[in-house]
């Protein structure tokens, strides 16, 4: 959470995250380069740079794409999600190295502009097998650039979470472009079962994890979605909610998190104002609802972030009758203080 923008708001966990990330990047580069020089020393330095940077970026992209669904399937993977943007920007840097070296190597020092050459050297756009695969990589790199350039809370705030999220969902388009870029490029040349196999395995892993996470989410939404009429609606028993935790309900299209804490029950929007994280999967910490994704906080009684922070959530009226919780799905304006429903002691 922040009230002013800094390039990186460092904390201990971000530093640990980045050190591990850099160590793993270093491990890949050293292992790949040393093995290459030992086993196939005829390779040129340019090809070594192009292959090492490309493969590293491709591997990092798979890790990045797996972190999201892994965190949905098991909250213990949340630490991987917390600083994923550093992983994303680093992946873009290696993609850029790969792209630039390719343009220099294959398109520069010729009779036309290298960028013009990129689009016109191979004109077999109508052929699947001979499609100019470098063009696919170029557009993927453009998407990754847009994502890396806006990978900061400044842009998140100014573009708005919805637009920002849509922009960053383009990573899936980039992934598709990169799959075809690899398949129609180096895999066609190498034709090795190892290269084809790892490409297929990576794709199955990414798709499989996303499918599993989607099924889990759909099941949850199916269970908790209710089409209610006007006024207060029964949602669950008090005992259904753990202390300092919440249950999530979809009532009349409203995504609502109902929290139980300190003998009270409050309801707020389930959608975190930061990156639309699921607040109902968070916890009350130090009296505040705390988002499981990046730790943004809100008071349960009024949906406001503790000062000096300014984020606010919609709030909902709550009643308790006969040990049951009732919520009125009509939202109150962001940050509206509503009296929590009191739980009578047994």
């Amino acid at each position, binding site marked *: 959470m922040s009230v002013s923008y800094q390039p990186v708001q460092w904390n201990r966990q971000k530093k640990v995250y980045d050190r591990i990330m850099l160590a793993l990047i270093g491990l890949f580069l050293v292992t790949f380069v040393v093995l290459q020089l030992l086993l196939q020393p005829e390779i040129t330095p340019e090809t070594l740079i192009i292959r090492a940077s490309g493969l590293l970026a491709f591997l990092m992209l798979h890790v990045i794409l797996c972190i999201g669904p892994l965190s949905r399937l098991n909250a213990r993977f949340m630490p991987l999600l917390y600083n994923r943007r550093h992983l994303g920007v680093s992946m873009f840097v290696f993609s850029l190295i790969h792209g630039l070296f390719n343009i220099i190597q294959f398109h520069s020092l010729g009779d036309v502009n290298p960028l013009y050459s990129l689009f016109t050297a191979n004109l077999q756009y109508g052929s699947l097998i001979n499609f100019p695969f470098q063009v696919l990589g170029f557009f993927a790199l453009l998407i990754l650039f847009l994502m890396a350039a806006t990978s900061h809370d400044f842009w998140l705030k100014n573009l708005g979470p919805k637009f920002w999220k849509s922009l960053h969902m383009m990573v899936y388009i980039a992934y598709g472009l990169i799959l075809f870029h690899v398949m129609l490029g180096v895999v066609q*040349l190498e034709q090795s079962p190892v290269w084809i196999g*790892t490409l297929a395995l990576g794709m199955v892993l990414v798709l499989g994890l996303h499918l599993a996470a989607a099924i889990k989410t759909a099941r949850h939404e199916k269970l908790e979605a209710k089409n209610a009429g006007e006024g207060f609606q029964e949602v669950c028993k008090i005992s259904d909610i753990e202390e300092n935790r919440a249950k999530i309900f979809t009532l009349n299209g409203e995504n609502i998190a109902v929290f139980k804490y300190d003998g009270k029950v409050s309801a707020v929007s389930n959608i975190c104002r930061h990156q639309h994280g699921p607040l109902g999967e968070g916890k009350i910490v130090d009296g505040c609802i705390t988002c499981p994704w990046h730790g943004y906080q809100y008071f349960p009684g009024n949906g406001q972030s503790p000062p000096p922070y300014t984020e606010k959530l919609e709030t909902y009226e709550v009643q308790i009758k006969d040990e049951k919780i009732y919520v009125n799905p009509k939202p109150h304006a962001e940050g509206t203080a509503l009296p929590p429903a009191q739980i009578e002691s047994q």
Partner: protein
Amino acid sequence: MTNNDEFFIGWETNAPPSYAKKGRTFVILLIFIIILLSLGWVISQRGFAGSTFELGKLSTIEGKLQIRPVPLLKVNYQGEPHSVLLIGFGKMGAEATLSDIEKVTNESLIGKNIKLRGTLIFHNGKTLLELTQGSESFQGFSNQSNATNTKRRSLGEQSLKGEILDPKCALGVMKPGFGKPHRSCAVRCLSGGIPPILKITNKEGGVNYCILLGEDGQAINKKVLPYVADQIRICGTLEEQDDWLVLYTNPESDILRLSPFWMGDNIPMCN
């Protein structure tokens, strides 16, 4: 998730123990994946040619300049004529550089014995000289005049199967200097005036190269661009000129792309 469950907050100093443990397990898994993938990707590559591009090292060679069939310096190597193909800097042919040199010397160099300095490229018995320094590649006239006249031997009408490449990359500068990833580079080189060659591989794995020219000996660089890096069959009159093969062909009618591969060899051509 129970109330007593640990809860991860990124801005706290430490992650809860169970989260940290999961993170450690994930990192260890990644270490194994990284090592395994690196090894797998390296050893499963099809390998790289043992060709040489002496980048950063300039050599001076002496010989007789010819511009037919393509710009080359004919040298006498161990008593045998050896043609050193000349190419320009980057992805350009040698003609512009030779023209610049002639402007400086104010006389035609064709058929003269000269000294040229540049970067050597060699592989499979073929040698190229990149005129890296432009017109400064010319190092004066040579007193040596032991280069013989070109020995020409007709090999008749032939139909050859192979891949059209640029000799600069295929013989040393790029690894790999063939196949689809290299297609755009080869297109640039041929478009820039480097003469196209056909790489022919026999069943025993032996490799030879053949310079491609039009039926009248004219350059056909632009016309072969659509076929670069594809497996093709090409027909024409084959000739041996010293240590190079030269195929005189009509690129508009006598080249056929062989992909998809199931088309096989029985293609009606060269009638």
